[in-house]
């Protein structure tokens, strides 16, 4: 049983951070230079009356503290206002986008975590070997390229040599049956998934390798080896089990980074998720959408970190004792 002080400390951290994000989000978008409508209707010659009525419609004419209360009330009840661009409720744009991002990101995360663990273990086990050196070099090179560029290059290759679809999640014609639709989705997913996996795996390789190398220096590993147990048992039962623990915390912490990769990948491949929503909001200066997307993404990451903090002591009871 995890101790109560630990839970209270993490829970209060969660609440404080969330509140901080809410306030930060509010102020950030109220200190905008210039009126968003003027930006939106550049050159359209908006009359003073039209600006006033739009301001009233979006609650921009109230004093700041009233706006803040309205904002908190609305946000908590899931009302993120209306999109400047489409006049549709922002929440209605965010929910489907969040689901599509979750599909892409969870698939990419599972693949890159498994690949990262396996490659990292092999690299640590055969430290200094050709495999280890080339794994490190590949990781460094992949880390040095912007994810969107990797996506552009893969798109080029995918179109020319494999005739893969490069935009969206589904074809609009000629697909029938559930199996056909799933196959269609899978074909659309190949390139964005590959881009994200290549962009994410390196982190996990490095952490797994580092953690395993740390475990190798522990006394119990020397004891285990002295007992004469097989290499395979040594690596999996003693090494892997201890080294994989830091990965749990990393997966949550890395979620922020993964989302950065997803934003770029979705933009390149027009995958209708949060990233594409953010990209289109940037281009249209659609601040309510940007604000809502930022809030949802950030709070998701904060909650994920909290969940990881709660799971961690269950996996490794030593944590709460520190």
């Amino acid at each position: 049983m995890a101790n109560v002080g630990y839970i209270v400390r993490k829970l209060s951290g969660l609440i404080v951070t969330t509140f901080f994000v809410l306030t930060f989000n509010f102020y950030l978008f109220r200190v905008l230079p210039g009126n968003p409508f003027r930006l939106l209707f550049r050159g359209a010659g908006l009359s003073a009356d039209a600006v006033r009525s739009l301001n009233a419609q979006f609650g921009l004419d109230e004093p700041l503290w009233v706006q803040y209360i309205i904002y908190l009330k609305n946000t908590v009840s899931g009302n993120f206002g209306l999109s400047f661009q489409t006049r549709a409720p922002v929440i209605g744009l965010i929910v489907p986008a969040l689901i599509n991002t979750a599909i892409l990101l969870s698939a990419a995360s599972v693949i890159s975590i498994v690949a990262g663990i396996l490659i990292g273990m092999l690299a640590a086990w055969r430290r200094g070997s050709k495999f280890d050196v080339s794994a490190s070099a590949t990781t460094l090179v992949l880390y040095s390229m912007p994810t969107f560029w990797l996506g552009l290059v893969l798109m080029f290759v995918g179109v020319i040599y494999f005739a893969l679809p490069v935009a969206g999640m589904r074809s609009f014609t000629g697909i029938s049956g559930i199996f056909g639709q799933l196959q269609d989705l899978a074909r659309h997913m190949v390139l964005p998934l590959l881009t994200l996996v290549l962009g994410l795996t390196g982190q996990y390789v490095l952490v797994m390798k580092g953690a395993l190398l740390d475990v190798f220096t522990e006394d119990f590993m020397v004891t285990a080896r002295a007992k004469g147990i097989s290499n395979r048992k040594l690596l999996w039962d003693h090494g892997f089990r201890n080294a994989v623990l830091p990965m749990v915390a990393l997966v949550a912490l890395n979620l922020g980074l993964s989302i950065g990769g997803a934003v770029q990948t979705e933009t390149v491949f027009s995958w209708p998720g949060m990233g594409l929503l953010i990209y289109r909001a940037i281009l249209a200066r659609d601040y309510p959408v940007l604000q809502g997307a930022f809030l949802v993404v950030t709070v998701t990451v904060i909650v994920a970190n909290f969940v990881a903090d709660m799971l961690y002591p269950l996996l490794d009871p030593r944590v709460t004792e520190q």
Partner: protein
Amino acid sequence: MSQETTETILDFGYSRRSTYIKVLKGFWRVYRSNKMGMIGLVILAAFILAAALAPYIAPYDPTEVFVGQNLLPPSWQHLFGTNEAGQDLFSQVIYGAQASLIVGFAASLIAATAGTLVGILAGYFSGLIRELLMRLTDFFIVIPSLVLMIVLASVLGAGLTSIILAIGLVGWTGTARVVMSQTLSVREHAFIEASRASGAGDFYILRSHVLPNVMPVVFANTVLVVANSILYESVLTFLGLGNPNQVTWGQILQFAFVSGAITTAWWYVIPPGLSIMLVVLAFSLTGYSLDEIFNPRVRKI
């Protein structure tokens, strides 16, 4: 008078010019034997030179339009071909180095300053100040960096200055953490105790004893931050937050993407992306090597 004696005795001789040069020479001897670090430094020198001498290296003005020569593949006339507007891509990539490097350095300067300040204060003072600063750092670590930068840059209005500010104001957490742990260890040294016993105030100790001792770590870390800043510049510009009239590597790629030329004109996409990759790689290699020298406890990758 008494202050000066304290400084010369206790400050490892950092204040003496000749000693300083000797230290630098010794450092260069160590650095030179690091193969990865030297490769990084050579690539870096090449790009800095290209950026500085852009007007002499680039055959054309990067914005000059060659009418009727749209999307031409590479030739002797146009080494990297032309874009959809009929501009010379080789000249654009060379000039792009200027903006990318400037953004990288400027953003890192902001991040390094903010990170050092937060780290040194959090490490030196205990209690409430440390608690608050650590909370602030944790907050910025948890928030998805790219999304936060996007929001900041778009609120500040598209352009290079906004991008520099956005990257700098978000990217300081790594430096803060490294500086804090370094400060925590420096602060335990006897010469700090001695300085305090002889009546030095907190500010004096921070400036004259702690800062010089964390500077090498800050320097190594900043080189790594430059790598990240250049990466983020390209991403933010690609996402449409840059100034379309300013030639940067990210901007070239944005035009390639928006114009739809990516599926046909490989020469439009490969050179700017490869340049970003090489520069980031060079900064990373240099930074890791510096880190290894200044901070030997750091785990090798």
